[in-house]
């Protein structure tokens, strides 16, 4: 996989879909995970879901007749993408912290 940054929306959608959720459930979960900071809008979420389905990073669960809302869940590929992204993110955070700490120590 190329080492590309995920958008915040995609990152949080993938994290949310460790458990099966429908669209509105994803929106609520993302808001909760980010302590209210990331509020996904419906259009943005819909576009992201379709792209992720095409890429095979998430899959739609076959819906029972009882519930009309479609549920989604992360796939194996999706989890692998998440793992790579977390490694990339921690590298970003680590180098940031190290450099700023050294800078503070020198002063």
């Amino acid at each position, binding site marked *: 996989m190329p080492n590309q940054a995920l*958008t*915040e*929306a995609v990152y949080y959608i993938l994290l949310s879909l460790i458990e099966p959720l*429908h*669209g*509105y459930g994803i*929106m609520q979960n993302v808001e909760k995970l980010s302590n209210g900071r*990331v*509020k*996904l*809008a*419906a*259009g*943005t979420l*819909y*576009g*992201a879901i379709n792209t992720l389905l095409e890429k095979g990073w998430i899959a739609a669960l076959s819906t029972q007749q009882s519930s009309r*809302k479609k549920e989604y869940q992360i796939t194996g590929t999706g989890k692998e993408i998440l793992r790579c992204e977390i490694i990339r993110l921690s590298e970003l955070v680590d180098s940031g912290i190290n450099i700023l700490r050294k800078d503070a120590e020198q002063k």
Partner: protein
Amino acid sequence: MRRIIHKMFLVWDFDKEEKWLNEMAAKGLALTSVGFCKYEFEDCVPGEFRIGMELLKDLPQSVEGSKYIEFVEETGAEHVGTLMRWVYFRKKTSDADFRLFSDNTSRIEHLTRIIALVAVVLAVNLYFVLYDAYMYFASSHSSAFVAAGTINLLFAAVAAFGVVRLLQKRKRLKSESEIFE
């Protein structure tokens, strides 16, 4: 009480249209339906609703289009109207600040959709300008072709202006997303 207001917005000023509809909602008039240059409102508690509008990829009546509308409705918004490929939603503001796009990636994608629409209008009118000119010189020399050609040229010029405006808007968003997501 119902109120009908006639007002025209050009396609590339869709953001102004959305802003105006939200200003009406803030004043206590919530959108209930849309028509061509026509908006119908009902009284509401000022600030009770937020309005969002979008150009869909597909016709709202198509399977894909109605799937999308259903999806947005499931998030608690109300589908208030449809005008060609444009859809209008409103949502009670108590739960969250309602909008349809929350990042630049999706805003840019939406703009690209609108650019494609206006570009088609531009291309069709340019085609007819050429057609009218050809008919005038090659066959009839009828003044009807001059009139039609002038009208098409006018439409093409307005559409070209629109495409430029939209491209500028998209460029601004793109340069923003080079720094911020």
